[in-house]
Each structure stands twice: as structure tokens, then as C-alpha cells.
């Protein structure tokens, strides 16, 4: 027996930590790690509401989100390695070729 708002508070804390990380970090790999924190917060919410409503759809969608996160990390790291090969840096604030 767990109170639902307690789980939602944990999820909110993880999400805002991830937002801080995305905004404050300038290393590309660390930005991707912060995105993982936000995706985990979303997954906690999905599983918690699924358990509270006695519906398995939440768990199924958490599995789908984990799969999309795996695809996102694969593509993201390939892009980061490509940027490093071309620019000798992975600082996201120095990659400003498309910045107006």
C-alpha cells in the first residue's frame, strides 16, 4: 500500500533534475544522460498510474518508452561521435553552425 502522490513526487523530482541537467550541461553525452532521467520519470508515472488503476496498459507503454529510449541513445551517441570527429569537441554550445 503506497500513496500515489508519494510516487508522483519522486517522478517530479527526477524530471526537474533532468531538466536542470539538459539546461546546465554542455557535454553532449551528459545531456543525453539527463534526457534518460526525464524518460525514467515518465516511466515511473506510467507504471504508478497503471498500478493505481489496475490496468496493464501503463506497464506496456513503459516498455515501449524504454525501447524508444534505447533507439534514441543509439542515434544520439552516433551523432555525438560524428560531431566529435568533425569538430574535435562535443560541447553543445560550440556547435552553432545552424544558429541564426
Amino acid at each position, binding site marked *: 500500500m*503506497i500513496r500515489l502522490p508519494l510516487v508522483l513526487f519522486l517522478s517530479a523530482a527526477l524530471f526537474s533534475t533532468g531538466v536542470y541537467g539538459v539546461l546546465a550541461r554542455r557535454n553532449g553525452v551528459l545531456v543525453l544522460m539527463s534526457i534518460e532521467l526525464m524518460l525514467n520519470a515518465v516511466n515511473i508515472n506510467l507504471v504508478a498510474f497503471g498500478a493505481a488503476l489496475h490496468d496493464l496498459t501503463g506497464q506496456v507503454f513503459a516498455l515501449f518508452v524504454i525501447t524508444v529510449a534505447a533507439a534514441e541513445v543509439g*542515434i544520439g551517441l552516433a551523432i555525438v561521435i560524428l560531431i566529435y570527429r568533425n569538430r574535435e569537441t562535443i560541447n553543445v554550445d560550440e556547435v552553432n553552425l545552424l544558429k541564426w
Partner: protein
Amino acid sequence: MTGAEIAFVVIGVAAVVGAIRVVTARNVVRAALYLVVTLSAVAGVYLLLAAEFVAWVQILIYVGAIVILFLFGLMLTKAPIGREALDNQRRGVAFLVGVAILAGLVYLIQGAFDWDAARIDPLEGSVAAVGSSIFSRFVLPFEVISFLLLAALIGAIVLSRKEDRP
């Protein structure tokens, strides 16, 4: 507080402390290892919510595969050490945005749910039910997401391959 809630609070504090260390660590490898702490704690939360299949998938995919991928990415790119090299100059604004989002979410959650009435009473033994749900009701999204994963991994191989082939 019930025993499950005490266990949840302990695991949740571990998850939040690990997450804060992920976004503040001055060494990139340490950030990746603190990410392991957070992801394992989230797997513990799934176990407390009786979602054991999601918990083990979390251990296998996140802790087993994605963190290793991160470590390879850190090794292939020369990562500097130190706060100025890893963080940008707008840390204060980022901190304010994070705190504002946290405060807004906490305000909305405590206004939307009754503290004593909204309880989770987890259903037990859900692996077989999750499997039959995926392969009956969600079989089309499952196939679509399999194809998405295949396309993403082929794209990653194509992107990171060296160009100088004959």
C-alpha cells in the same frame, strides 16, 4: 506509514541523490556510474509497484546496455574534467527553471490527489498478463516499435562508420 512506503522512501531518496549527482558530477565517468544508482533505484520502485517485468527490463536494457553505451561514448570522445568544462555559464538560470518546474508539479500533484484516498494497491504476478497484453491488444504498436528500433540501429551504424572506403 506502511512498510512498503518506508522502503519506497528509502529507494526514492537513493534515486534522487543519484540523479542530482548525475547532473552535478565533475567527472563524466562518475556521472555515468551515478546514473547506474538512479536506474537501479527506479527498478526497485517498479518492483515495489509489482511491475516485475518492467523492473528486469530496466536492469537489462538501461543498466546493462545503455550505460555501457554511454561509457563507450565517453571513451570515444575526449571528455575533460572539471566544472567549467562540463557545465555552461547559465547554471543559475537552469537551476531556477528546474526549481520552478518542481514547485509547479508538486503544487499540481498535491492539489489533484487526495493524500489519504489515492493509494496504490498493486496487483501481483503480472508478467503473463503483460505478455498477453502486448501480443494481443498492442501487437501493432509492438511491431512498429520493433521496426523503429531496427531502423535506428542501422542508422547509428551508417552514421558512425568511417567514410574512407574504396
